[in-house]
């Protein structure tokens, strides 16, 4: 069974030895084509799962660099909203789907390229060399 499975039976779930997990697309730098309403909705769904900032360009010309974390869908694009935080503002903000003209996955994907296997390899190498090893959080500034 793979991550592409859309629905499991109870028997399949109970028999799972390894969980397939999510498959992440390489979205960093991607500028989706927003030709249709469906294109926009799908791109915003990907933005919700993205582990970095996106840049929304509104039809007014305003550019918003933001971390998109939620959406509430209405019957039309005008009454569907995407919710975000920007680096400069402390409060949550929202914008209507209908106002969005362009999207770009402009921020760094904060999880990309970090693999457990890399850590195991580095750990074993340092251990063999008799050195200590530590992964530190990235600086926030």
């Amino acid at each position, binding site marked *: 069974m793979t991550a592409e499975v859309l629905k499991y039976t109870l028997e399949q*779930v109970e028999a799972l030895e390894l969980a397939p997990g999510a498959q992440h697309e390489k979205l960093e730098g991607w500028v989706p084509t927003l030709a249709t309403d469906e294109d926009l909705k799908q791109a915003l769904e990907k933005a919700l*799962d993205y582990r970095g900032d996106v840049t929304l360009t509104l039809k007014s010309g305003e550019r918003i660099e933001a971390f998109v974390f939620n959406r509430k869908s209405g019957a039309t694009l005008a009454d569907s909203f995407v919710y975000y935080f920007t680096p400069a503002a402390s409060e949550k903000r929202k914008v209507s789907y209908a106002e969005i003209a362009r999207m770009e996955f402009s921020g760094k994907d904060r999880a990309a390229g970090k693999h457990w296997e890399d850590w195991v390899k580095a*750990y074993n190498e340092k251990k063999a060399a008799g050195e200590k090893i530590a992964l530190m959080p990235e600086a926030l500034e």
Partner: protein
Amino acid sequence: MWTVSTYVLKKKLSGNKRYPLVLMLEPLFRCSLACAGCGKVQYPPHILKKQLTPAECFAAVDECGAPMVSIPGGEPLLHPQIVEIVNGLVARKKYVYLCTNALELKRRLPEFTPSKYLTFSVHLDGLREHHDFAVCREGTYDIAVAGIQEAVKRGFRVTTNATFFDGTDPNNVRAFFDEVMGMGVEGIVLSPGYSYDKAPDQNRFMGRARVRRLFRAILSNRKPSWKFNMSPLFLEFLMGDRKYDCIPWGMPAYNIFGWQKPCYLLQEGYADSYKELLETTDWSAYGVPSGNPKCANCMVSCGYEAPAVIDGFGTLKGFWGMVRGTFSLYKDQHAQKLLNEYSASGAAPLVQIDEPVHSLEETNV
């Protein structure tokens, strides 16, 4: 125990079918560790710098009414107002579990006041080498243990919490239990890992069959000195002796984004209130019966401990099972055979990428 049992009984008598037992209150995502497998802290810096205010924390707790509040993160001790938050929750007579990697615990302890309502739940994933390996920094085990010892000395309630991933050697875990209980902690909290969508790697997570097999090996044939700060029925669920359906609203998560839909693990949107979370989440889309692949490997406490607790305090059969489970050592020859298989295969003390497959039956249900 009395508080939780009366809470469950009151909800049952009032006919309330969806209610919270534990609020998972995440006041920030910032952390002082950078564990390679973590799926909780993969955010841009401006998100990691954000944090809930004490007032926001209290409003969430007051709205949902859960008798227990778990404070994970991120690392809660990095929150500059964490003492104010904890004191406010204790004043509300909430049982608070402050989950910490304990890097700052010893230094911060003088700021806290011991209380029956406050427990420090210290992240320890195993013995020294295993823990340091799991959290990707050498020396953390010794710092955490020093924090635990100081907290115990000062009269605080302390538990440890551990997450186990694929490749864990149950013999090693059992040795870890011996060591932890020797530190004077009240009990142990444990959980199988979950494949967070936002985690960098997605191939380190056990399916349900493997979870049951591992936990049956770990938790059978217990030593009398081991104490667990968890529902005995939930531990039996992990061992494959019970079946429960997930109730994600039982341990809802609140953080800087709002009330997380549908649960602490999945991020499929946010609600502005617990009420909105209950009313606008399509609960039928989640849990094993739904067939949702995102729920397929989950046997985590945030979905399955609440039904175990409700079973234990809400039914006579469940209550008897809980009493029996509290005192049972779970003698099990099959589990002993599985432990011996691990020993014979020369399982490494650290979680490995590839490990031998152990084929013993994994469930008693």
